[in-house]
């Protein structure tokens, strides 16, 4: 078992330069995706299939009535208990030994179940055209540059981050660092917290947030949707079992019929007695 790694994001050190956004596009060869004017400096409302991380810009009036201009590098959290992995019908989504959650593009069928079940809404579908002009879809999100990690490199976004707002390293060390950092900034940001939600088993992108998660549009207590648990852990196995059971029943019925018909020598087509 290799070490698990965590991308540590200290939003209080981010200066909003967005190098992480282009580094991601550059490494992953993602096309640009022009958007409408959103009324702020922010370029994209949220992550998309071609934009795996988005820098959020939030003008927030804090408890003291002062203006905080908050930034957040938003991308896949790489949950330890990932809803996307759970709901993927093709087992295209898997955990790597580093703790990252990746989508196998060869297996992905573009069903979008992961898109709808991600508690952070960071997965998106992209429509492609094959050489015959036929459309097909694939699901995309941040890979944490698992290909780079395999080669001993850090994710592209972390590599380029100049303020130290992002670091990449051993999971426990990064979580510790986050907790330490929160203590340091409590004076400046009384609501500061480590965001490593346990509802999804903890994440491999761990944030030091300056404010409550809701200020960043993040769920306070994200978890794998109950529907997904019921579906994948109960409905689907039970459903499969039921298909099996009924199939077994009819097979049993078929065999029994053959068996009893012979034994009873009942050659009538309708074995029913009259109904007195």
């Amino acid at each position, binding site marked *: 078992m290799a070490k698990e790694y965590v991308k540590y994001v200290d939003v209080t050190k981010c200066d909003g330069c967005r190098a992480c956004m282009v580094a991601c596009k550059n490494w992953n060869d993602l096309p640009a995706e022009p958007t409408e004017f959103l009324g702020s400096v922010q370029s994209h409302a949220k992550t998309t299939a071609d934009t795996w991380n988005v820098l959020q810009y939030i003008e927030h009036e804090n408890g003291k009535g002062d203006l905080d201009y908050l930034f957040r590098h938003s991308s896949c959290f790489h949950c330890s208990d990932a809803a996307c992995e759970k709901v993927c019908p093709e087992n295209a989504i898997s955990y*790597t*030994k580093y703790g990252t959650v990746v989508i196998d593009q060869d297996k992905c069928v573009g069903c979008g179940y992961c898109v709808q079940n991600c508690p952070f809404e960071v997965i998106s579908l992209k429509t492609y055209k094959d050489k015959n002009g036929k459309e097909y879809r694939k699901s995309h999100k941040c890979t944490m540059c698992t290909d780079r990690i*395999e080669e001993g490199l850090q994710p592209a976004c972390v590599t380029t981050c100049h303020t130290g707002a992002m670091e990449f390293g051993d999971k426990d060390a990064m979580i510790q660092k986050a907790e330490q950092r929160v203590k340091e900034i409590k004076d400046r940001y009384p609501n500061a917290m480590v965001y490593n939600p346990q509802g999804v088993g903890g994440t491999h992108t761990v944030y030091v947030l300056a404010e409550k998660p809701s200020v960043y549009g993040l769920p306070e207590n994200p978890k794998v949707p109950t529907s997904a648990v019921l579906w994948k852990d109960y409905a689907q196995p039970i459903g499969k079992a039921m298909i099996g059971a009924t199939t077994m029943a009819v097979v049993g019925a078929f065999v029994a019929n053959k068996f009893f018909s012979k034994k009873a020598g009942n050659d009538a087509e309708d074995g029913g007695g009259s109904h007195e």
Partner: protein
Amino acid sequence: MVEMNLNRRQFLKLSGATAATLAVVELGFNDKKAYAKSKEFKIAKATVTPTICCYCGVGCGILVHTKDNTVVYTEGDPDNPINEGKLCSKGTTLRQLYTSEKRLTKPLYRAPGSNKWEEKDWEWMLDTIAKRTKETRDRSFVEVENGVTVNKTERIASLGGAALDNEETYLLAKLMRGLGVTYLEHQARI
């Protein structure tokens, strides 16, 4: 600060005018290709050349990865002490300076009154520019003004150059002053 065996492979070779570097920030592990990918690692077999960012005056080091006659990746040069491998959004995008479909690839000429560009070859362009320069210079050259030798032309201007290399700015300044140009300006003024 959590140290993660930031072993840098130091800058390797500097031979003549070209240099190659393999500067990567390594993690403390190297499980090669645990998850085998059919895709080749993007910068494997790429040539790496250090450069300095062409945007602001910070002067960050950038590594340009080239392969198959194109730029496949650009990233911060970890050896450069100014930026230690870090970049802003502009520096990170350096790659598209090469790959952008909007790059000019041919000399273009616009005739007086014309509403379109015409492609011309370099030779014709430079010959014609030299001719125009000479015509204007010859017509407007002032040798003496109020008894003082001034050797100037005030009908030619040269603007720009803040993005040129030092050697280029030097030659440009030398050529323009050599021709007698007084309207010599660049972006330091704006």
